[in-house]
């Protein structure tokens, strides 16, 4: 578990932050129920839920059969009858086998019933590349469900965000899809725990102030962009970095405010170009800050093909800090 720094400050890994957040919310509210494949006895394949079954018992921390449509749907049944289920998808790619429950049932439930009930449910899905898991176990799936009103979709990029977002998601009365990134699980970071640590599931967050351009990134790309900024700092370039963080409902106002100052936008995401969220951000920013833009928004994405397995190929596919830095420099000089 995390290292206590002060009364409320801790230093933990992303993995531990998730476990802490879940444990605290389960202590706080006895209606919180965890379900998923191997989340109980084994503590999850990525070990985020380790120890929770010991503390909260087998009724509240439940291993499921390999039946995503079944247990995600069961989550909806729990959510509308008095519980707050947190359902884990071992890999985000498995959204494919339960897409209907998320898109057609869970997201639309409250609306179709005319507001008769809330749907306080969390779906945690572990995505992301870099671990050589191949085409079907490396997707972040950030935009698979983007066009589904009624859902919240959030993407924690650090231990702090993971902790605060999961706590907030559990308390949220709406269905929240939390897209975690397996490449971040070992990353460590410091954050305030307790009530102070809650993250509003509302909008993108400024993570590094700057003035020369605005970079918006999500998940593992946030860290790479920060590294890229360190690289370009030597050239005196100071980009501002915003963590996209909340994909749905999408609120670009912090990005607009930033671009009005920096006059340039780069989006960086770990997903194919066509159909990525970068397009949505670019379109909205162009709409709202057209006259402030010195050049068109620039999107860094994965190339438009599935993830290859081979290590050097996977590395070549993923935007690197160095690659991002080159783009930053080119944009800075070009404009």
């Amino acid at each position, binding site marked *: 578990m995390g290292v206590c720094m002060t009364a409320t400050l801790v230093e933990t890994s992303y993995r531990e932050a998730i476990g802490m957040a879940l444990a605290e919310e389960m202590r706080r509210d006895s209606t919180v129920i965890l379900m998923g494949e191997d989340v109980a006895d084994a503590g999850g394949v990525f070990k985020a839920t380790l120890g929770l079954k010991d503390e909260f018992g087998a009724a509240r921390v439940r291993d499921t059969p390999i039946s995503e*449509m*079944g247990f*995600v749907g069961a989550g909806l*049944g729990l959510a509308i*009858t008095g519980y707050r289920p947190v359902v884990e998808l071992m890999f985000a790619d498995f959204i494919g086998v339960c897409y209907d429950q998320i898109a057609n049932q869970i997201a639309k439930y409250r609306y179709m019933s005319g*507001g008769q*009930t809330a749907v306080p449910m969390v779906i945690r899905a572990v995505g992301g590349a870099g671990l050589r898991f191949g085409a079907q176990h490396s997707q972040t799936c950030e935009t698979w469900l983007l066009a589904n009103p009624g859902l919240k979709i959030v993407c924690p990029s650090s231990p702090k965000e993971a902790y605060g977002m999961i706590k907030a998601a559990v308390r949220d009365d709406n269905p929240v899809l939390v897209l975690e990134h397996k490449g971040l699980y070992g990353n460590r970071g410091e954050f305030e725990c307790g009530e102070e640590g809650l993250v509003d599931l509302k909008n993108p967050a400024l993570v590094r102030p700057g003035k020369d351009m605005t970079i918006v990134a999500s998940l593992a790309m946030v860290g790479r962009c920060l590294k890229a900024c360190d690289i370009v700092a030597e050239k005196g370039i100071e980009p501002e970095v915003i963590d996209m963080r909340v994909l749905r409902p999408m609120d670009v106002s912090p990005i607009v405010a930033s671009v009005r100052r920096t006059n340039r936008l780069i989006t960086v995401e770990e997903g194919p170009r066509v159909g990525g969220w970068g397009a949505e951000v670019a379109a909205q920013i162009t709409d709202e800050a057209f006259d402030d833009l010195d050049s068109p928004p620039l999107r860094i994405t994965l190339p438009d093909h599935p993830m290859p397995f081979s290590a050097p190929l996977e590395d070549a596919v993923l935007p690197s800090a160095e690659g991002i830095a080159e783009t930053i420099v080119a944009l800075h000089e070009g404009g």
Partner: protein
Amino acid sequence: MTIQREFSNRSKQLCDDALIEMYRSMVTIRQFEDEIQRCFLKGMMQGTTHLCQGQEAVSVGAMKTLRDDDYITCTYRGHGQCLARGMPIDRTFLEILGRKGGVCQGKGGSMHLTDFSRGLLGSFAIVGAGLPVAVGAGLSAQLRGDGQVSMTFFGDGSTNIGAFHEALNLAAVWQLPVVFVCENNLYGEYSPLRATTTVDDLAVRAAAYDLPGYVVDGNDVLAVYDAIGDAVDRARRGLGATLVECKTYRHSGHSRTDPATYREQAEVDAWLARDPIARLRSELVEREILTIAQSEAIGSELLANMQEVSHAAGEAPWPDEKVMREDVLV
């Protein structure tokens, strides 16, 4: 495990009033569906609807076994279940016509009738989708420990989709108080069951999860009450889930656009002769619980009311445009 076809005789304990109430409920459903069909023909109703004339015994027999705090999910062919459970006729009608005052404010419609105040957790229009949700409600009941039961209705064709399998397995593994009620009306949309499934009795599928499988005459409301009553009993006593297959028949086509020409007239006639309402009426008359005259009076009284409801719904205003933007998120 083999299929069970004999059940307790709990229906023998039903008092006369209860039996008459069940009769009234079945007639109400029949009239409601007939009236909806008329609304279609008159152009008062848009979209699609899936009527259940001929299947009323399943809804009424099943609902009679439940407590007020039990949970139910059903499908797009769910008017019968909703009405048998007590969803107000007027607000149901308004919803199906998309008018102001509908149970779902006009945002659901015929395929998505929902009434939380009565444990009606929703009509699911994606085949199979309601079953996992009912399993979740069953888990909720088990966790709460108040002896609640979760009941889910679905058709024969729905037993071929993955969600059916996953839901039954989950309910079995966790020994949940769920009653799976399959209304086997012999057809999917237009496909006869034998074209899409190799087993005659869908209840055999329960054995794949070591669950009991019941088969019952779904056109005999008292038999339905007996069989589902046994399943509900098992669930309440913590013995787990049951798959109950009710053999029945829909009198009309799958949906309003379907003339159902794919069915042999002889088959239709045979099933019309087994009309669940006529059968209950005969039994009540035979047992001198009801006279023919009384049954006719009930029919007229209910019909007058139904026509009033329908008329009022047809005159009702449309929903305010602003409701369409509400209830997306809390």
